[in-house]
């Protein structure tokens, strides 16, 4: 309670010192960062105060109540959810100082250059090459499934730096300047008709060695840290009852008695119950984390989220009946991200198909649960001790 009261008074002092009407939005956000009121669980000097993560809502609540400008976190999900924790845990002090502030304020959007046409679930098989040349690296390769690449200033990039050692050992991790010469971003049109994602071609892109995250050859460890944060970000947000995709299904059910059938009634009850139980499981997971008992339940969250989104949207299209045969717009557009709440059921049905593929397929997540949570024996590996260059392709 003391920390909470202290934070409240810090925010009030800050607001008293920074006139909301007069301040430039970015200046205000930079000052908030410098005051340690950006993300309170981050260390001092890096936008935080080393406080428990749970206190962040106190600060956010105070700023929101005052009508202060936000850093539009939804525009920089990969930056805030994945890049920042990766930089914090694996970056140098100089890199943290250089990158975290513009990341948090939203001045610099981040994206993630991980998957390749030949390296999806087997990310460690990736082929994008980085070759050292004095104090910089020269990168060539192709990446896919890159959300926000067309908006991003920087990217998290994993490359192959040593093809002569087994695949997990020869990777190195960088922050790539997306405005550098040789970076070409092309939209990758999805089955929904639009392009949230991109393919990114890297041709002789020069990256300073100062932008390497972690040591040479340590890229897999850093990438794993990023992916763990990705799965927490995808499955972990707190929601009220009927806060997720079930909301529109339940709403349509209540508003349109003429669409109801006995079979669909059973389906809507099942989906509502499953969604509410998943919400409770998410709440329990957050309680575990807050109590310092990091349970393995986090791995379940993304799996359940993907399944529910797919089942609920499939139900919605069927419930819509004749309207389920219509689709709002196939034209090629460039949205910021998935929009599960503002569009029609057909879009949700199609977009949700990506939920069990992006950020680790549901099959890979089941492997992770089986091996890391249940302790079952790992798959027989044919590629573990073979130099990457000698793997069959």
């Amino acid at each position, binding site marked *: 309670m003391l920390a909470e009261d202290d934070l409240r008074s810090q925010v009030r002092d800050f607001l008293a010192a920074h006139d909301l009407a007069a301040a430039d939005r970015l200046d205000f956000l930079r000052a908030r960062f410098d005051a340690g009121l950006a993300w309170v669980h981050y260390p001092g000097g890096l936008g935080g105060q080393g406080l428990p993560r749970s206190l962040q809502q106190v600060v956010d609540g105070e700023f929101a109540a005052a009508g202060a400008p936000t850093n539009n976190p939804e525009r920089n999900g990969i930056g805030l959810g994945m890049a920042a924790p990766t930089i914090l845990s694996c970056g140098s002090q100089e890199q943290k100082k250089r990158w975290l502030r513009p990341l948090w304020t939203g001045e610099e959007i981040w994206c993630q250059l991980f998957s390749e046409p030949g390296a999806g679930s087997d990310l460690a098989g990736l082929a994008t090459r980085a070759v050292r040349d004095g104090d910089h690296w020269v990168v060539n390769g192709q990446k896919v499934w890159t959300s926000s690449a067309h908006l991003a200033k920087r990217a998290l990039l994993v490359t192959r730096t040593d093809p002569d050692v087994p695949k997990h050992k020869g990777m190195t991790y960088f922050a790539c300047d997306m405005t550098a010469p040789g970076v070409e971003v092309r939209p990758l049109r999805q089955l929904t008709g639009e392009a949230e994602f991109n393919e990114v071609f890297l041709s002789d892109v020069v990256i300073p060695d100062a932008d390497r995250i972690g040591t040479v050859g340590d890229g897999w460890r850093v990438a794993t840290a990023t992916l763990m944060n990705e799965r927490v970000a995808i499955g972990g947000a707190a929601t*009220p*009852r*009927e806060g997720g995709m079930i909301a529109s299904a*339940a709403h349509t*059910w*209540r508003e*349109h*008695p*003429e*669409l*109801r*059938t*006995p079979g*669909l*009634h*059973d389906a*809507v*009850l*099942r989906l*509502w*119950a*499953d969604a*509410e*139980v*998943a919400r*409770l*499981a998410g*709440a*329990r997971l957050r*309680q*575990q984390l807050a*109590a310092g*008992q990091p349970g393995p*339940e986090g791995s*379940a969250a993304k*799996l*359940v989220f993907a399944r529910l989104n797919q089942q609920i949207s499939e139900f919605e299209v069927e419930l819509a*009946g*004749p*309207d389920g045969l219509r689709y709002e717009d196939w034209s090629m557009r460039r949205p910021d991200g998935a929009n599960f709440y503002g569009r029609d059921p057909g879009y949700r049905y199609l977009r949700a198909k990506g939920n069990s593929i992006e950020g680790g397929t549901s*099959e890979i*997540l*089941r*492997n992770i*649960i*089986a*091996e890391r*949570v*249940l*302790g*079952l*024996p*790992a*798959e*027989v590996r044919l590629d573990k001790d073979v130099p990457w260059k000698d793997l069959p392709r």
Partner: protein
Amino acid sequence: MSQTTQTETGSPLAGGASTGGPAAGSASGGPAAGSASGMPDLLYSDAESQLRAAVRALLADRAGWRDVLARTETSQPYDTGLWRALAADVGCAGLIVPEALGGAGASYREAAVVAEELGRAVAPVPYLGSAIVATAALLSAGEEEELLGALAAGRATAALAVPFAAAPGARPMPTIRVSAAHDDEPAGTYRLSGSVRGIADVLPADILLVPADGVPYGLYAVSADEAGVTLAPVVSLDATRQLADLTLDDVPARRIAAGAAAEQAVAAALGAGAAMLASELLGVAERCLEMTVAYVKERRQFARPVGSFQALKHRLADLWVAVTQARAAARYAAACLATGDPDAPLAIALAKAACSDAAVKAGQETVQLHGGIGFTWEHPAHLYLKRGKSGSIGFGTADRHRGSLGALANLPAASAAPATGASR
């Protein structure tokens, strides 16, 4: 156990855990809003973990699965010695009874932990029937301090005479009739006749709590050793919880509650029974998962542990997810009952549905993933399969509980008139 907890424990029972009323707590335009007091603690407290350890140690010592299996083929399907130790020595019989009435003054949170452990051990004791269902009925009816004290202390065991399959809210067809006492009997005595099929945990009961129709409907106490009481053991799908058919032939009875109070007592008992059975089923599912994971690590075929095959790993990962989800639902129901939260009826329906499905899935996967040995009488898998499937029907199937969400979450059924679908 704190006085505060004790006071809070009493209220939900008096208030009734009925899921019977339509749309209880839900506005017509949306779903029920959720817990009145925000999200309750869904974890296990230190005290709950200590209680769990005490119960688990006793069960490991006294109720190994071989003993449980052997007992199913004797004339004593319930382990009364174990029940006395659990009830009186560990104090499990009085968990939901206030200290002032001779109980432990704990709550449904602790009671649920005990239920989980009994499920893990497929223990043949009448905890659910006596310490939960009958006790909840008496707490709701009130003014039964002497009987409650005896139950809480483990001096007596009681059972509510309803079919094990009875769901909260679905008032079973009355099958017991009330008639006037004989001329020479004291005022307040009644006579009951009729039968109830498939009652759980009634074989070891000293006292029967009998809902009976008459004017008015009432809840009556009958001593199990009265002349005219016949309990016929049923060959039951789950032999670790043997059911019995009850016949009453002009048996003297004392009325505990009448009219709405009696209906409320039965509804509260069934609601509490469904919630605690959900936790028991969670224990069944958890133990199944543990047992099966351990087995597939050991069992080798094709020169490797069968647990290294992705086909099995993915099934077990899915089962673990189901157990994880079910645990959250079970804890939420126990927490809502413990504080008398108005969201309790919805929480109970969710928990019973989720835990029933998880336990059935777990029992079935346990048999299949054990292969040949899992199909034998000499392996415990079948005890869990049967306890899980039987428990999934007890106090309302998953389907019935989900069905109650139609009212509780405002998701009404299709009307009788055929939907045209084209008139939108």
